């Protein structure tokens, strides 16, 4: 397989102050608040958040599946949404998307061979039948679906969840995309198979030079998949609350939400009866009335009056950006319990 065409520092795609607002007859919902992002080759950008955080919307905007209601998306300096349909499609093919549910992303009446072959034939014209088959087998081996020959005429329901997801991933790389958006690729997969999918994504980054936009709600998987230079965005209710290097945020989170997420992330070294853990979790269940201020105020253990009335600023601390009134004070602070 050939490698992605961009050089190391060139920005492949950028999002400038994009936001997405869904309007229904009665009200409008801001699914994604003003967000900016730059995607570079050989990089993993992690997006962590719960459902409703806007992470999926952000992923779909990057993958050109969702048009932003404001702001601009640029692919190598060009706004795809302003281009004629044919040119738009050419750009779209370079940004592929992996769905959370691998079963829904596959046609249940097509065999593994048919699923991959149809895409191979579209991108590599003029191959003989045998050559197509060889390509498909190559892809299956990359996906660790072995023995490949055995699986050629099998249907999606014959594969385990982990295999299905890996199949979806190798299908997505046939167009040789520069960006791969993976939306919660492991959340519908059994525990014992999650690592294999993350390994595949890592190798796509290192061996094929792609940019991987990895969206998840499991912070521990961010640690697993990331290299020191990879970024992390923590999102809550449509806003990026903390942004910086993944390794740094995991070591020393500043935003209260990041702190909570990290303290409840699973760790085998946790004792059997962890009171502190319990107390942190029970803190988050309090709910006060939400005012005009910070979206996280009602669940925040550090909230002060200002947090409920004024929206927080973006505070820059070294290479970190934190959306919080008390950002500078909270560096190094633990979540208070008791």
């Amino acid at each position, binding site marked *: 397989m050939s490698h992605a065409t961009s050089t190391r520092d060139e920005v492949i795609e950028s999002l400038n102050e994009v936001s997405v607002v869904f309007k229904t007859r009665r009200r409008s919902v801001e699914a994604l608040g003003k967000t900016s992002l730059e995607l570079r080759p050989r990089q993993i950008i992690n997006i962590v958040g719960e459902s409703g955080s806007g992470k999926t919307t952000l992923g779909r905007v990057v993958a050109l599946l969702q048009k932003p209601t404001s702001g601009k998306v640029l692919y190598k300096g060009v706004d795809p949404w302003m281009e004629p349909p044919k040119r738009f499609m050419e750009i779209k093919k370079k940004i592929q998307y992996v769905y959370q549910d691998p079963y829904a992303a596959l046609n249940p009446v097509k065999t593994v061979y048919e699923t991959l072959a149809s895409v191979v034939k579209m991108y590599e014209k003029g191959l003989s039948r045998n050559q197509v088959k060889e390509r498909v087998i190559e892809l299956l081996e990359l996906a660790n679906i072995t023995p490949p020959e055995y699986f050629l005429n099998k249907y999606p329901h014959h594969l385990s969840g982990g295999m299905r997801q890996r199949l979806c991933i190798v299908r997505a790389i046939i167009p040789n995309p520069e960006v791969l958006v993976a939306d919660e690729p492991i959340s519908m997969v059994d525990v014992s198979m999650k690592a294999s999918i993350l390994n595949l994504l890592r190798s796509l980054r290192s061996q094929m030079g792609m940019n991987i936009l990895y969206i998840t709600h499991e912070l*521990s998987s961010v640690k697993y998949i990331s290299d020191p230079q990879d970024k992390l965005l923590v999102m809550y209710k449509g806003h990026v609350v903390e942004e910086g290097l993944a390794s740094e945020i995991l070591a020393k989170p500043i935003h209260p939400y990041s702190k909570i997420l990290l303290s409840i992330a699973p760790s085998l070294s946790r004792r*059997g009866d962890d009171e502190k853990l*319990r107390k942190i979790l*029970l803190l988050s*269940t309090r709910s006060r009335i939400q005012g005009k201020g910070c979206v996280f105020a009602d669940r925040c253990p550090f909230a002060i009056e200002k947090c409920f009335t004024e929206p927080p600023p973006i505070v820059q601390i070294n290479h970190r950006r934190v959306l919080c009134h008390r950002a500078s004070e909270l560096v190094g602070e633990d979540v208070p319990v008791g």
Partner: protein
Amino acid sequence: MSEPILLIENLTADYLVREGLIRAVDNVSLEVRQGELLGIIGESGSGKTTLLQAITRVGPLNFIVRSGRVLYRNVDLLKLPDVELRRLLGTRIGFVFQAAQNSLNPFYRVRDHFYETLSSHYPDLDKVEMENRAIQYLELMHLNPNVLNLYPHQLSGGMKQRVVIALVLSTQPELVLLDEPVSALDLITQRSIVANLKEINTKYGTTMVYVTHDVESLIGLAHRIAIYYGGKIVEVGSIEQVLKDPLHPYTKALIDSLITTDKSSEEVKSIPGNPPSLLVGHKPQGCVFHPRCPYVKDICKRVEPPMLKLGDRHVACHLYKG
């Protein structure tokens, strides 16, 4: 915390699908100790949901119990007539089934749900007493008592699940069975509900059996865990022992595959191969895990390993001697 409140003995149950019979519960024996929070961990397709279904007879009745006993305080639940079992389920034993938040009646307020549940099992309570009890249990689940006046659609997923648990707890059971009660919710809500359950277990001594595929959710919260694979229990022990020093090769492989913050990426390994078919006649001979086991010996392919007791732990594996 030591005598068994629930004793499952050699339970075997099949359920019917188009392809044939699925042996989801295969000669399962398990003891649930009074006052503990016991986790039953099984991945998808392991058959763990059928285990609770066979005991409580709640849900689609497409299963057949082949053999075994389920003793609750010396009464075999399997032999009880439906009416009596239902009475027990409303008073001494509670059951929170999967996606239970969807079982709330959209036309009833939370208050009405409590009236209905409590009055059918405790007919002597009057409305005021029922309301007090409802408030008591709602607060126990960290819910504001004014949710009593709300309809289910006005509550978030997490709140609905908490209401369901409060409803079950309000009948004051001494044993609560839970089947994946939090899987459809977001992470912090999931973990906080489990923490809530642990809090209740610690304060009131209510025994809980929590069936899930997410072993991480129980870290730091359960006392003991039982590992379910291919319709069988392969290992039981305290959660600390099992996680730090797993005995069964499947348990070990499962823990190795967990992605946790204290592991480096080289330490995480997926389990090769596929979960076994539970179709009667298609199961692997001998030990159900042998096709994927890195320590497989000849005897594993022929003879099913018996459950051995090693101190306070149990394991079904030929690597060990009783």
